[in-house]
């Protein structure tokens, strides 16, 4: 990439490359800048957050686990505040916090096992430490209660997920490491950085893993309505096209003024057509007209809330509602890192507003002057409109989302977003 271009509009890749040569604070600042300008969005936010937290672990000064946790929390909440409509940032921060707690408790166990038995610790931990940190609001059964009913393979996430009861204390959370030796700080640092690498791998591989389920979900002759196909959805459709003959109907909110010389989704359509899959590009907002012809509706989620509700691109809700009315399945592609252990805020405050001038010309001032124009960028979809949550771990229904959350987040970190208000 030409350097002049890079300095003009830094991309995420060039930013990540620059992390090694910059101070930690400079790296955080430049990412905050990109987040605030919405130049880093969606999946890229997750990657960027993991990269920056890796820098935090590597470069910031910390002597024990509590200090490391608070460094990660403070950097994480700055990022999350910069892009409040990107819940994946908070998810990655929580994952890293959980990772640190796991690593710390493993080391502590190794130390303590010399003098005490594991079962003693298990009975001790809950009563000894809760007072040190305001307990998060209990919103679901404790992870240990849920983890017994887990269906999900944990092989990939053995570092991140909640360990089986008996392996280690479940709430080994804020275990103080005041007597930690410098050697163990060093060990913890490298363990945590390895763990973050694994989270990054997971984020990078998620789309391919989801695409692996394409041939199960898409059947020959299907008419698939893809609403504003994201990169995840594109990969899914292209993978399906290598196995099946079907038709893709692409819908979006975009009005003609948005379409430049390049027709919308031209690259995707070229790939699908090359594989023998027909595409129809709808120039329409209303989808009830087309749903009788459609077999299933597919779109990507920006985030999945604890209740199974979705944060999605604006207009996806129209597709989901129309499909629901005609009893057509709604398949949502959502990698596990998009699952938030939070409840959705109410619909009005959760939606994001975009620039209305793309729709209304302010050139005819007086006419438009007193008009309230609202151009929403995100929608909330209630869980009852979703049939399949297709994750990188496989298809899920909303009844099993709690176990995915329990697998990936520690109860202590669920309240992370509540700390956002604190400076």
């Amino acid at each position, binding site marked *: 990439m030409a350097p002049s271009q890079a300095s003009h509009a830094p991309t995420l890749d060039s930013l990540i490359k620059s992390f090694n040569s910059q101070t930690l604070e400079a790296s955080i600042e430049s990412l905050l800048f990109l987040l605030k300008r919405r130049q880093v969005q969606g999946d890229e936010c997750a990657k960027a957050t993991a990269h920056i937290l890796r820098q935090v672990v590597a470069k910031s000064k910390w002597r024990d686990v509590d200090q490391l946790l608070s460094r990660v929390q403070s950097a994480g909440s700055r990022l999350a505040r910069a892009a409040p409509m990107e819940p994946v940032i908070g998810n990655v921060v929580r994952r890293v916090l959980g990772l640190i707690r796991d690593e710390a408790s493993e080391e502590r166990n190794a130390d303590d096992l010399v003098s005490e038995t594991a079962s003693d610790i298990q009975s001790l931990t809950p009563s000894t430490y809760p007072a040190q940190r305001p307990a998060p609001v209990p919103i679901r059964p404790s992870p240990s209660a849920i983890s017994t009913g887990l269906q999900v393979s944990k092989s990939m996430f053995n570092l991140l997920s909640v360990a089986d009861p008996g392996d280690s204390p479940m709430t080994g959370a804020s275990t103080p490491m005041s007597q930690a030796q410098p050697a163990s700080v060093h060990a913890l640092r490298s363990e945590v950085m390895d763990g973050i690498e694994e989270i990054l791998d997971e984020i990078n591989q998620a789309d391919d893993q989801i695409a692996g389920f394409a041939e199960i979900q898409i059947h020959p002759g299907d008419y698939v309505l893809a609403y504003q196909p994201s990169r995840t959805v594109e990969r899914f459709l292209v993978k399906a096209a290598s196995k099946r003959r079907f038709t893709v109907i692409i819908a979006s*909110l975009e009005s003609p003024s948005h379409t430049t010389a390049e027709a919308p989704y031209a690259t995707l359509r070229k790939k699908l057509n090359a594989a023998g899959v027909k595409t129809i590009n709808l*120039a329409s*907002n*209303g989808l*009830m*007209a087309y749903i009788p012809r459609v077999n299933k509706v597919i779109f990507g989620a920006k985030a999945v809330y604890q209740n199974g509700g979705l944060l999605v691109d*604006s207009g996806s809700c129209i597709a989901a509602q129309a499909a629901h009315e005609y009893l057509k399945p709604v398949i949502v592609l959502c990698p596990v890192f998009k699952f938030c252990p939070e409840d959705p805020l109410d619909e009005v405050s959760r939606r994001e507003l975009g620039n*209305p001038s793309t729709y209304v010309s302010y050139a005819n001032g007086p006419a438009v002057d007193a008009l309230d124009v*609202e151009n929403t960028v995100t929608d909330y979809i209630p869980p009852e409109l979703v049939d399949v949550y297709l994750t990188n771990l496989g298809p899920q229904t909303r009844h099993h989302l709690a176990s995915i959350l329990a697998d990936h987040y520690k109860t202590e970190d669920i309240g992370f977003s509540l700390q956002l208000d604190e400076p």
Partner: protein
Amino acid sequence: GRRPSVPTTEKDVRSGIPECFSHVPMAKRIPTSHANKDVHPAVLAVGQQMATFFLNDSISRLRATLLAFRKVIESYETPKGNSLSRHFVPHVLNPQIEYLTECRPMCFAMGNAIRLLKGRVNKFDIDTAEDEAKEDLLEWIDSLIIERITLAEDAIARNAAESINEGDTIITYGRHRLVEKTFLEAKHDGKSFDVTVIDDPFDRGGQELAETLRQAGIPVLYSPNLGGLRPKVAAASNAFLGGEAIFANGSLHAPSGTADVAMAAMNAGVKVIVLCETINFDRDRVSVDSLTYNEIDPERNTADCFRLLFDNTHDKYITGVITEFESGGGNSPAQAI
């Protein structure tokens, strides 16, 4: 056979249409030189205006058609040895209708009016004097326009305006004459209410409605597309939707997107009121989905984009229909024709 160039261009124009929509008709521009020589100049002009969507909604098309037919009747002279009742329809009226249908598929109101007109002609005695018959037809057309269009519009707007309560928030989709008239009338009555206009970004009629209402002093929230529809619908007290036609099974034929708004409103527990003149009711046809009766947008039928002009709203998403005769459920006013 008669005009070999036309079928080939038609094939080209329709070649981009996906197979699953290939049965849906589409308006097309016919060069006036290609039209049947029997087509009256007034009808030629109306046909062009329909093909270019300058005349767009069903009532405007109906009115223009009737006025053009008025000219056709005025200039009609029965050939020697024929009578008006036998000659006019097959030899004069039908070519006009064929041409109009070729320019754009007829709307259901036009179909109703033409059926009524033909019935009127058939009632003439074979020896009715030509002048007398022409006079009768012209008067009949004038009264049809007054009763079924002009007065109907006033009556519907009045009824609908009365149903608006102080402090209501009414949500509507796109721009429909009757809905616009209703809002202005209610405002004129001194009612204070809010309007949420949901627009179709591919049409943008709603923006004109929003500006008109705004100038009349009605608070308007304008949404350029169907994004964020659920919360907007939930905040409304009523949805007012205009219709192009209502079928015998009570389903509504209206601009694409109307069904989405009606469904969202009904699911949110908001009353869905359809405003429609009875001349738009079709008691012979039944439509259960949007692919039975529809039209392809001729501007958007390329490989890069495709669009249907209408959708079909099932009567379970309609609380009531306000017509010039009565306000009731989706089905009962069908008897009014």
